[in-house]
């Protein structure tokens, strides 16, 4: 463990605790993480009693060597991208803690919980209004997008 960089050491600790005590509905794809510690796939379940009940989603976390001082790059991947006013059809998420409100005291677990709660509080399944234009023109890395956060209610 001594050969690890501070960033790897912290990721390792986070991984251990996520595997040991995962929050409800969140599971780490350990196979993907074993291949590469800087890219994690995480499965999250739509909670019961919400619009996403019974659905399964997959998140991709990418970490650079400045993590946790730099935020992770988080997108939805796979065949089922949640239909939500803050989630673009290419998987990009408009969530302030992923860019300007990121704090190094946040973690993979707290990001997962924020995304789960963002989904749970949704009252109408629809895509963001500028989805078509955005998906056509955006950078592959959602962190390169300057997001304007507008509404915390959904």
């Amino acid at each position, binding site marked *: 463990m001594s050969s690890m960089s*501070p960033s790897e*050491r*912290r990721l390792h*600790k*986070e991984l251990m605790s996520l595997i040991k005590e995962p929050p409800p509905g969140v599971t780490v794809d350990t196979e993907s993480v074993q291949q590469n510690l800087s890219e994690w796939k995480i499965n999250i379940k739509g909670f019961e009693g919400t619009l996403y009940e019974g659905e399964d989603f997959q998140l991709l976390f990418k970490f650079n060597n*400045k993590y*946790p*001082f*730099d935020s992770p790059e988080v997108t939805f991947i796979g065949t089922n991208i949640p239909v939500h006013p803050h989630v673009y059809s290419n998987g990009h998420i*408009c969530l302030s*803690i992923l860019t300007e409100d990121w*704090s*190094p*005291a*946040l973690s993979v677990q*707290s990001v997962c919980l924020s995304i789960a709660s963002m989904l749970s509080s949704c009252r109408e399944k629809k895509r*963001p*209004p*500028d989805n078509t234009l*955005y998906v056509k*023109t*955006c950078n592959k890395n959602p962190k390169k*997008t*300057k*997001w*304007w*956060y*507008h*509404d915390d*209610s959904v």
Partner: protein
Amino acid sequence: MNSDDEYSDEDHGDSYRLANSPSSYMTCVESDEDTCTEIDLPERPKRPIEIDEFAYTVLTADQIVQHQRNIIDEVNNVLHLSPQVTRIILNHYKWDKETLFERYFESSPQEFFHRAHVVNPFATPSKHSLKSSATTTTTGKPREQLCGICYCPCEELKGLACGHAFCAACWKQYLANKTCSEGLAHSITCPAADCDILVDDVSFVRLADDAEVTARYQQLITNTFVECNSLMRWCPAPSCTHAIKVSYCEPRAVRCSCGHEFCFGCGENWHEPVSCSWLKRWLKKNNEDSETSNWIAQHTKECPKCNVTIEKDGGCNHMVCKNPSCRYDFCWVCLGSWEPHGSSWYSCNRYDEEEGKQARQAQERYRSSMARYLHYYNRYMNHMLSMRMEHKLYANVQAKMTDMQENMSWIEVQFLKEAVDVLCQCRATLMYSYVFAFYLRNNNQKIIFEDNQRDMEMATEKISECLEREITVQNLYEVKQKVLDLSHYCRKRRTVLLVHVREGYEKDWWDFIE
């Protein structure tokens, strides 16, 4: 007032002085003439338009830092807080002492400090005991605590008054990252999630513990200070590190100690008679044909409050102006205030109508005004190019002055250089006079303006030709008289044109074409 420090420009009557000592730069220069009692003669009503003084000082980077300290001290004479806390609060109010005092006396201390993102220094300290994510061993030995960032046990955790604490290594990296990678200084918060308490400058130096990072931080702080402060502006000349400080904000000519003369209102080269906003439109329009500008026209809009050019690169329509002194919330689609949009942000129904109408109008305007535009543009460009040539003239004139010194003294040949100065000044004024005229609607005053412009242009061309072709050492004294006469006449024509325009601004004669 030390007369050595004072310079004055004969044409504008603008005066300023350079600050020589930190203690002197705060004083405002008032025109001596203002303090004299003078009876305004009815036949000279133009006098106040012709001679009006604009006082300003040039500050070096060190003087700016000192100036900040002075303001902090002034505020602390009333508030009696630690300087670092006062600095954060001042920055919150964009260094406007009056607003700060107003808020201080009208709101509760708790609310006041909360709004400025600092911990209330008068609150009972027990509330702010360390609340790190620490797990302490109860063995009585030095307590080992877990740092909330690296998740490693550490002997000592440090933090701000909010009580969130992290290990020294994490603080160092956090602050270095914020300052050097993200370019933040005043707005760095405690690293804890959801904590909006700001890192003060004293804590920064202590926790960053790195000379290079601290130097960068100091630079950023000074930068924000000048940019937030409506009474200050950086000299836009490349690699100049001075700033200009004025006592009231107005679009006026200022000259930095590096020699660059520019407009305090917008930072462009001094552009009388045209106003800042029209010049900005003109410059944008000039670039409209290039690819870049097509892009700018399509992808940018101006902030409806501060006119900064804004690019939207995705995300939602709720825009927050990033200009540190503006921060206006508005809707990208209708450019109205964001407030009424509320939560139904995507059903802003003003979109189709307005945007469509604007686009159609813009197109029509563009076509019908192309010929007119080219008329003014060609003349504007012509004077600009001539002005660049005139700068070459300085070298020629210098050579001639050396030749002449066989027959005349150094002081006697200065008239040549001064004549080129006048010529360059006239070229600049003529250049901007075409921008002014382009946006001007026809009326009788415009006819007078155009007559003045013609006279000035003729005078300018005459002196230009004379300086370029007629100067020879043979006819020295004859030429000297001619050059002096011509430059005097040019200067006079320029004053006439500018005074007329100023009078027009004052009396509302000018009607501009939107």
